[in-house]
């Protein structure tokens, strides 16, 4: 340290030569370094550097770049003049169509020497990787002779940072040096190195200067924001965003804090305080809604909890609440109100009408939610009223802002009985869709009537096989078929074609299913351009599989039964209980389908 060895001196000259090059050779790629110089000397308005880089830096056929180029230079001048870089450097910033087409031939690195035992040799390499990862030209002279880490040049320092080695940044004291270091790290595209320099800058520069310099360095800025997010230095991050005029981001960041507040009253107050932040106009309306909603939920929750405890309100006894309504989305809240507070006068906070008005919920949305809630309660007269109340032309026809197909879907998911479903299936306009739905939900009358209207004898005859023996439906079909009315045509039912194929069939003892049973599962899966082959129970060849499935069916049926009347947890986000009920239904249906006719014992 006191006496510099000769090697050390050589080293000194080496790096100085390197430095001289870096600053004097005006090269495109070096412009970044110049910029950092400019940035410190000029206080004028700063241009967006990143934009500049895209424009100015061009892909160069020559492997010229600030750091790696210089390292290569030294390599060439040191011990390995014979070695050329294997692959060309490409600019990481600018696309250049013409040049990137041409591959460059530069290498002599790829000389085939024959491959050594690869496992062994690579393990060796890993073993002392710490050494081997050095660039040779940096490694030997420096690591052996240098006493102080602080003797590294900015370029070498960044290189070491990239390699994950110890560095000392303390010697970079002038702003110019600090920024040079930062720009070199950015030029190396190494996030770890960039962050390392930023941590150093954050420690050694006052906020004002740090923030000012970030403005023209977008890449570094994003790293700083991410660092502060991860270290949870919320206050500093907010200051940074505000200093840069990114007020919307700052507002959102502050708003995000509400998630950390568990007490609902404190959370509500916090949301209220957010209203004064500088959100985009459109977002502010949402924050307002968020606040109003929570405020209201607190009121409803308090009242309902009390009502439930006192046991005076029937609905809470019949369908006890599974969870508190606090912090649920608006639509869940509306559903809750439609479920528990449907007939309240509009003046109360919990009446659905009031919620609808306060939050300007669309007619369709309101309708959908109310329908689901009343169907869940199996209150079919309320369901009915939803349709007819909006018909002022003499109640002649049911109207719905939702397609009737969707209506049927919602009702069915809430286990509506056939006679209710039938009423709405009949209102589906499209004949083909109506038949599909009718078959799916076993509304035989509709199917039969539609076929009758289509005058399709063949389809009717086919359908006879699917209705119960000796049922009223069968009789009706017989009647129609024996009636020598206008000739019934006999076209092929097109929507069955996918399911008519019989698969499998070894010695399992089961017989193929009637096609239509499977078709609801299958058809739902038919892709736009292909039919799916039907998978049937006969593919299962083992008797034990059958047994297993039979057990499953019994189980699920029981489960389905017991879960019928409950107000399931309509959990946040996901479709909640509606889906659960459906799950059960499909389980039962699916297993049915797979079991086949009673197997021989």
């Amino acid at each position, binding site marked *: 340290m006191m006496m510099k060895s000769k090697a050390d001196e050589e080293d000194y000259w080496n790096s100085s030569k390197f430095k001289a090059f870096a600053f004097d050779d005006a090269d495109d790629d070096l412009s970044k370094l110049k910029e950092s110089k400019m940035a410190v000397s000029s206080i004028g308005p700063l241009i967006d550097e990143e934009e500049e880089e895209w424009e100015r830096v061009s892909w160069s056929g020559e492997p010229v770049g600030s750091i790696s180029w210089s390292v290569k230079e030294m390599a060439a001048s040191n011990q390995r003049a014979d070695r050329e870089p*294997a692959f060309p450097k490409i600019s990481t910033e600018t696309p250049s169509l013409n040049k990137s087409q041409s591959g*460059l031939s*530069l290498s002599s690195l790829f*000389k085939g020497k024959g491959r050594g035992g690869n496992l062994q040799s690579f393990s060796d390499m890993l073993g002392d*990787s710490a050494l081997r990862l050095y660039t040779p030209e940096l490694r030997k002279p420096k690591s052996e002779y240098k006493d102080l880490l602080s003797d590294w040049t900015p370029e070498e320092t960044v290189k070491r*940072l990239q390699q994950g080695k110890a560095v000392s940044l303390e010697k970079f004291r002038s702003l110019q040096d600090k920024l040079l270091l930062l720009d070199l790290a950015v030029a190396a595209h190494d996030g770890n190195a960039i*962050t390392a320099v930023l941590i150093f800058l954050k420690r050694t520069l006052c906020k004002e200067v740090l923030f000012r310099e970030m403005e023209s360095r977008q890449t570094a800025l994003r790293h700083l924001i991410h660092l502060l997010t*991860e270290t949870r230095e919320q206050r500093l991050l907010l200051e940074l965003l505000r200093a840069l005029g990114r007020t919307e981001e700052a507002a959102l960041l502050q708003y*995000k804090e509400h998630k950390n507040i568990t007490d609902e009253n404190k959370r509500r107050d916090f949301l209220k305080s957010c209203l004064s932040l500088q959100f985009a106009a459109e977002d502010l309306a949402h924050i307002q809604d968020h606040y109003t909603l929570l405020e209201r939920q607190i009121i409803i929750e308090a009242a309902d909890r009390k009502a439930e405890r006192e046991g005076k309100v029937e609905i809470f006894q019949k369908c006890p609440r599974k969870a508190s309504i606090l912090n649920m989305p608006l639509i869940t809240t509306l559903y809750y109100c439609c479920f528990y507070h449907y007939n309240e006068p509009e003046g109360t906070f919990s009446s659905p009408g009031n919620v609808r008005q306060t939050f300007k919920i*669309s007619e369709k949305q309101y309708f959908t939610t109310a329908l689901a809630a009343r169907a869940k309660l199996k209150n079919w007269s309320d369901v009915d009223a939803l349709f007819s109340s909006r018909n002022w032309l003499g109640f002649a026809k049911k109207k719905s802002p939702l397609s009737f197909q969707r209506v049927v879907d919602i009702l069915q998911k809430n286990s509506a009985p056939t006679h209710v479903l039938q009423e709405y299936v009949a209102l589906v306009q499209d004949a083909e869709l109506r038949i599909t739905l009718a078959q799916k939900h076993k509304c035989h009358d509709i199917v039969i009537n539609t076929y009758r209207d289509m005058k399709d004898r063949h389809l009717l005859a086919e359908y006879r096989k699917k209705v119960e023996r000796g049922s009223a439906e069968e009789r009706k079909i017989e009647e129609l078929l024996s009636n020598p009315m206008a000739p019934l045509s006999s076209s092929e039912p097109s929507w069955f074609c996918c399911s008519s194929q019989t698969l499998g069939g070894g010695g399992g003892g089961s017989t193929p299913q009637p096609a239509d049973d499977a078709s609801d599962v299958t058809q739902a899966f038919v892709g736009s351009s292909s039919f799916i082959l039907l998978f049937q129970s006969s593919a299962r060849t083992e008797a034990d599989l059958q047994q297993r499935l039979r057990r499953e069916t019994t189980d699920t049926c029981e489960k389905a039964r017991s879960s019928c009347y409950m107000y399931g947890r309509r959990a946040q986000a996901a479709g909640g209980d509606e889906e659960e009920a459906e799950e059960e239904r499909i389980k039962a249906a699916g297993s049915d389908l797979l079991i086949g006719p009673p197997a021989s014992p």
Partner: protein
Amino acid sequence: MAHGGRKDSPELPDLSLLKRLVRDQLIYLLEQLPGKKDLFIDSDLMSPLDRIANVSILKQHEVDKLYKVEFKPIISISDQLCFLIRPRIQTVKWICDVVNADKAAGKYRRYKIIFTPQKFYACEAVLEEQGIYGDVTTDEWAFYLLPLDDDIISLELPEFFRDQFLAGDQRWVRTAGSALHLLYSLFGPFSKIYGIGRCSKMTYESWREQVEEGEQRARQAEIGNVFLIDRDVDFVTPLCSQVVYEGLVDDTFRIKCGCVEFGPDVTSSDKSIKVMLNSQDKVFNEIRNEHFSNVFGFLSQKARNLQTAYDKRRGMDIKQMKTFVSEELKGLKQEHRLLTLHISASESIMKKKTKQDFQELLKTEHCLLEGFEIRECISFMEEHINRQVSMIESLRLLCLLSVTENGLLPKDYRALKAQYLQSYGDEHLLTFSNLRQLGLLVEQQPGETLTVMESRVGKLVNDRTAGKLTDAFSSLAKKSNFRALSRKLNLVPKSDEEYDLRVPKDMAYIFSGAYIPLSCKLIEQVLERDGWIGLEEVTRLINGHEFAVTAGGSGADSKSKGDSQRIILVMFLGGCTFSEISALRFLGKEKGYKFIIVTTAITNSSRLLEAMLDNHV
């Protein structure tokens, strides 16, 4: 797969070498802390660790107890603690708390942190700030690459995507470069490298520097070519529903580290089972790349064959039966077990998909891809949102609409956003802000000329018609990059043609013949053209950063004729989906290539979008 394709595909290199290397290195690191020690493992490192080591190996190296990092005070009584973690500030802070709590209690222990795959300065800075730098020794375990299968390697870094593309933090660039360098050292030298995307370029640069820093050992190349691609080059593909078996299993059950957990609905018992899904599973291997519609036929055929094989024993005498039991029965039982499993899984998938109106969902997706009946698609999405069907699914459709249409019309954007917030909670404001930043869900900027036109026409007609006209004009005027790309590259096959999924004619089969994944199409084109020549318009639409470089010199081209030239390493930066892997396998068979897929993580639409939620603060 039922189609022809070339039979002369080259052999893949043995990737299990990677596992042996990291296992040895882990053992070496554990030996650096001699004596009994308790090991704390980051929860998301557990599965990867499982793939390369097991408890007995750890025990052999004096690991006493194993714990998962849970950010709670620890209960260990060991005097040596070892932490095996990802380099995350939160985890390091927790370790600092542990050490400081020990100090306060006057407890003396030795601590070691092993960061994998590398350490970050920010983590060490935390150690320093918390005053425990020096009390804790640190190490790095260069566990960059985990082979998930014969042709899939994962970095198991799901956070790569969010860090790189949303936060703009380039911390993993070096990691990706090092991973590539490791493959280069083991299976290189590479002769050609193609790439597209900003991160790809940086990764290439990082790798190139490491090549120059290191020492070159020349040898016979096993992997000839490399293709690097950024995830943000193609967001459309990962947003589509997967319908190829492996992708569908991933979408439905979530494959984690090559392993899936089938719940009671599949196992038909009260417990779940974990199953490895890879080429070792003979049944799975035959159906993984198939369109789901073919899977049933295949499985039932298999079941029939199995039945026949079992039935053989009926007419057997004792001796034959003995041979049967000793030679065939075990294999048959194994096959039976696998078959049962995949049949049940398929059933379960069917049920789940039926429940969620999958057909309608697919129809909507296909319309979006074709740019057809967009209004109907939007009202389908609205209904989806209104009924509070899956929060992620709704978001996925919105994003797909945005990326295929180059953003939503301002009025649609506002209406859909408002409804979304009503249905799923106002805090999703943060999600929308993230998606906008990433460019996944944005508002269209109306062109000026358009506004002039509009107002002129608007004066002539009444309001309602004007609204309709606005729609019409906007859809004429907006230039969707995806549409243009789709036309240029023929990504959407003509819908009037029949598409036989059993005999696929191109990669579109992975999406029921409706769409050829952009990412894979680019790879196909570049390999075919040996570069980007003729694709200038395409790269301009993608926003460039494409490159194609050749390792020249005498060394490389002497072997450029060999098999290794037909082995192509495709590195996805930011994740790839199983569907893309299936598509590339198909392409490989067609053209006589073999692809090795390296990805920062396996992704799908749910993972992609979940990464955009702000669940943590």
